[in-house]
């Protein structure tokens, strides 16, 4: 049998700054369009999935995709490929130019950006880029061992989970001399534990830029503890209840405000931030005064991308400050039209919700009667006018009485708005990392609208 070599690991595969620059320059030289932009995304993904005491799939994938966007006059088009030989690059540039010539003039087309200055963001961590198959399998074993121990009161616990690490290098170059390069890593690990009687299910998740920040045993233990505690759930009538949302549940809802923060939709009258009669609601109170929502790629807890796909610098943006709408997200076109600075997309620089200092346990302790939610599932928009959503609770829904968890509850469907609920805030916890680029607190919300029961465990 042949000697098996070590697997290829991210750090040796991603394009370096010099390699990305050289590739971008080759492509820019091939284009005769009026303006050209090249986006290069070089990626490595290593993943391990398991269920029922078996690794069911595990994979390692490397790829580099190059997208060329050209403008001829006001006509623009894009073409992309992952075949990086000279003939393919030429074909890709030619195709983009042909598509652009065929496209109608775009009155909203903005000229490409020249050189820009970016914040320095170090979001690449070797411990994540080096997370090889053996290390992942070993983490899975630690998780399963912890889950088995914590799940003992319920018998033989069933666990299923997914661990994946990503490393990515992104480069943007334009024919006007812009060149931007950024590397990042992220790792995400989630585990579901189910009790053998089929009546209990628990879940835990951690995500970060740095694998060393994640405790594989703790994820298994928390998932199993929730599974054990959620057995034999009881029914209470659906209705308006105080809800304590754990940070992961908040992480499911708050980013849904991203689309609503688009300035153009607000100015055009089709957003919750539209002012009746025209204009937008910047300067108005839109949430409880304890709430602040911001993006900032340089924030140590976020480490987002310092530029977007056009090379536009992404800086700190405070969307909601102490309950007041301070900013909306402006594309370059809409910013110019309205005479303001462009911001890029609302979620580009990560997202943090802040305003409190308490732990989730303290938020629970302050609740006289309410429902504790571990996380949500299958969230879909019902009404963009209010950002109203529907979805379900999942993997650990409990009744809180007099500051203590007293009973497991059946899951609920709910219809609620992440914006409107911020006006019914009873308490807000300290921001905690929920995934790479996100900081979310626990929230206690009055009159959360639980609309029907679900039999799902």
């Amino acid at each position, binding site marked *: 049998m*042949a000697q*098996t070599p*070590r*697997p290829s690991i991210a750090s040796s595969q991603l394009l370096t700054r010099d390699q990305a620059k050289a590739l971008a320059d080759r492509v820019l030289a091939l284009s005769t369009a009026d303006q050209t932009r090249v986006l290069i995304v070089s990626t490595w*993904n290593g*993943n391990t*999935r*398991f*269920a*029922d005491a078996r*690794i069911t*799939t*595990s*994979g*390692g*994938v*490397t*790829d580099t*995709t190059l*997208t060329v966007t050209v403008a001829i006059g006001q006509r623009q*088009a*894009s*073409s*992309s490929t992952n*075949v990086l030989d000279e003939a*393919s690059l030429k074909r890709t540039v030619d*195709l983009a130019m042909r598509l*652009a010539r*065929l496209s109608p003039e775009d009155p909203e087309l903005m000229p490409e950006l020249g050189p820009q200055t970016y914040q320095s963001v170090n979001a690449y961590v070797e411990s994540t880029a080096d997370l090889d*198959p053996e290390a*992942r399998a070993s983490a*899975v*074993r630690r998780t399963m061992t912890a889950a088995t121990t914590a799940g003992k009161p319920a018998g033989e616990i069933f666990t*299923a989970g*997914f661990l*994946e690490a990503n490393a990515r290098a992104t480069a943007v170059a334009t024919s006007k001399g812009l060149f931007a390069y950024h590397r990042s890593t992220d790792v995400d690990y989630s*585990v*579901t534990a*189910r009790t053998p009687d089929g009546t209990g299910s628990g879940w835990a998740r951690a995500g970060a830029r740095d694998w060393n920040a994640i405790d594989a045993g703790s994820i298994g233990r928390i998932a199993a503890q929730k599974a054990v505690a959620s057995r034999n759930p009881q029914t209470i009538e659906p209705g308006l209840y105080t809800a304590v949302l754990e940070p992961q549940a908040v992480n499911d809802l708050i980013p849904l405000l991203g689309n609503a923060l688009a300035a153009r939709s607000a100015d055009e*009258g*089709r957003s919750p931030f539209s002012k009746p009669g025209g204009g937008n609601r910047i300067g108005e109170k839109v949430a409880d005064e304890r709430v602040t929502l911001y993006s900032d790629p340089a924030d140590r807890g976020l480490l987002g991308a310092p530029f977007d796909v056009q090379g536009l610098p992404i800086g700190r943006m405070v969307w909601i400050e102490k309950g007041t709408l301070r900013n909306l997200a402006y594309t370059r076109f809409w910013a110019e039209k309205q005479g303001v600075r462009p911001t890029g997309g609302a979620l580009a620089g990560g997202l943090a919700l802040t305003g409190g200092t308490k732990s989730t346990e303290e938020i629970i302790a302050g609740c006289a009667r309410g429902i504790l939610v571990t996380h949500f*599932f*299958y*969230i*879909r928009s*019902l009404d963009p006018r*209010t950002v*109203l959503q*529907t979805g*379900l609770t*999942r993997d650990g829904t409990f009744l809180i009485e007099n500051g203590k968890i007293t009973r497991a509850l059946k*899951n609920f*469907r709910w*219809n609620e*708005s992440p914006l*409107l609920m911020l006006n019914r805030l009873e308490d807000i916890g300290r921001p905690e990392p929920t995934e790479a680029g996100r900081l979310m607190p626990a929230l206690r919300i009055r009159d959360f609208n639980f609309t*029907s029961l*679900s*039999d*799902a465990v």
Partner: protein
Amino acid sequence: MSPTRRDFIKATTSTAAALAVGHRLGLSAVAQTLPAPAADAAVIDLANEALNAARSAGASYADVRIGRYRRQSVATRERQVLGVTDAESYGLGVRTLVNGSWGFAATSVMTRAGAQAAALEAIVLSRAARAVQARRVELAPAKPVTGTWITPVTRDPLDVPLEDKIALLLAANEAALKVANVRFVNSSLALLREMKTLLTSEGTNVTQTMIRVGPSFSATAIAGGDFQSYDEELAPRGAGWEYVESLNLPGNAERWASLAAEKLTAKSVQAGQYDLILEPTNLWLTIHESIGHPTELDRAIGEEANYAGTSFVAPPEKVIGQLQYGPDIMNIQADRTQEGSLSRVAWDDEGVPADQWLIVEKGVFKDYQTTREQVARIQTLTGVTRSHGCSFAESWNAVQFQRMPNISLLPGDKDLSVNDIVAATERGILIRNRGSWSIDHQRYNFQFSGQAFYEVRNGKIAGMLRDVAYQSNTPVFWRSMDMIGGKSSYWMGGAFTDGKGEPSQNNSVSHGCVPARFRNVTILNTARSS
């Protein structure tokens, strides 16, 4: 060798009768089709390089998929083009089985060295996976196959000039903007050509070219500080440009847009219990969510527990042949051979020939969706010893696993139309097209909306409603179905991108159905202001 599908069908005469109906359900066959291309010799060489490397390094089984994907999209709003993109992706994925554990590696470095490195990385992953292995993977037998296939099309959409595509969309937008209060219109085309070669260590060597098209149209009307949108249900299909043209977007857009304007003045629904009449343009998605997903065998045995969830159709030994899913007029057929459907193939991503079988027969749950490694879990319960051919990977860079085939509600014996169902209904609501959708992780509690809602009173349409959603529990809902349309009312919708798995992958799948009535369903009013 396992019995063939036909052997299995012959075993139950009622199944054969249902399938006879099913066979007529495809769209009419395309008159003139393009020839199926074969793989380049260089592609076969690279695949063999990876297979040989995997075998030499100890794989008991290996398969290699080399895919070349071309995706084009054209998006417009009102009188302008929002974007034109054209993307090509080419690469190789190799899956290995070593001592009963899977490994998968993929690369876009398409050289002999790249193919070998990917194969050896897959072996490393297989070996690492042995650290957590409660049982070994065993594959159901499959006869090696060779051949080529292409989606039957008259005209490859990627060969149609871009000017024609833009002109078609802008003409539709222009027609829509004629309607009073309609201020915004979005229309788009998503086009895909997927050429995929599969070689296995067992001798399979097949090359298939799949062509899919996904058009969309949406209009928004604004008046008096309110806005309402209407999305037409333009089914994505495994079809050519001739299908896009047959939809006549420019000719229909004004009528579609007028529905957005009409919604502005529609009556907000009074919440309560109503009889619900679902047009096929709405019901297909309810079938997808409440029948398609719960009958995936990987969900039923817990392999999706951490993501999409498990299933109420479990455990297999308690539900196969026993679970009453709905009334005896309910027959649900899985079919990867259906003309025009999104998941139509000749062979799946394990080289298993496309299959057609019943999931629900006369209201009773009968069988799951399977791949080769899943067959052994249920074969003593179903008597089926072959895979149903449900293996699929979205790209060369993703591992294949069990994905949904086309799953459809077969027509009733009487050739009823939706008008016949309305005429027989005293107090109800009729819903067209998909709206918001959400369902729990075991597929019990769901809430779906639509695009156009009509009040039905004393057998007649009594006017338009808005803010409507229906909420129910899957078994309760299907058991309340008491009328279904006949074969002339059959229509096939579909999802261009259906997510499942970790890392999440997209699958394209169609669902055919007839209009149907459900009794005493909970209707919600989704307008809320505080």
